[in-house]
């Protein structure tokens, strides 16, 4: 992973793919690095360490969209 301004490049060796990701994606990856969390826990942890631009259900919706995107790119694995 390499930061470039406020974007980060994530290189996935097995596939040869390079993903350019936003700070929100990096924050979520940091949380999921060595633990499994559900959406609520991800939102709670993000709110604990950052000021978020949104509140309540809006945050959960957007975080859900980010997680869907990351799973589609195989950056994370969804379990059930």
């Amino acid at each position, binding site marked *: 992973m390499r930061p470039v301004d406020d974007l980060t490049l994530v290189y*996935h060796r*097995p*596939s*040869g*793919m*390079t*993903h*350019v*990701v*936003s*700070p*929100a*994606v990096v*924050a979520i990856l940091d949380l999921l690095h060595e633990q499994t969390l559900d959406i609520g826990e991800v939102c709670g942890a*993000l709110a604990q*360490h*950052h*000021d*978020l*631009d*949104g509140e309540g259900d809006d*945050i959960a*919706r*957007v*975080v*859900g*969209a*980010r997680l*869907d*995107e*990351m799973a*589609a*790119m*195989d*950056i994370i694995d969804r379990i059930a």
Partner: protein
Amino acid sequence: MTDERKSDEMELAAGKASRRALLRLGAVAAPAVVTLRPAWATGGHHGGGGGGGGGATTSLAMCQIPIDKVCDKDGKSYDAYGYDMSSADDEGMVAYGGSSTSSKDKDKGKCYAPPPKGYYYGQELIDYQESGRLPDGIYSTKQFDAHLKYIKNLKPGQSGFTCLTSLVHKL
């Protein structure tokens, strides 16, 4: 003095609160991940894009798995030298056309020709798995099945193994 102390405490509290950075989560429909295909690094074709909420993902597996040998129906590969590619039949099988008098060469039967471009993209294997669509230039499922058997028997160190590994969860 009391007012100054209160003022100091308020400034300290404000400072603590502002030290937490604002994290912009973005919008539901605005993608936060864009994927660059490996070929972009070599000046190849246009890179791929990421999917947003509700949109389909467009990352493609463009790593390559070389096949420059002929294969029998079990996926076992042999050196293509001596095989006459012009003798290809409807199933993609080619006959050994060498003039060698070696008894070993005389036993060489027909084998499936390698793909025209000499390799497959990982995405072509995924497309076949998902839709049954054969790669460009391949017209026989028997030929492609033989190639798939060869590919699935690749070992570490063989060209294409890393690409295959990256596709395992998609195949």
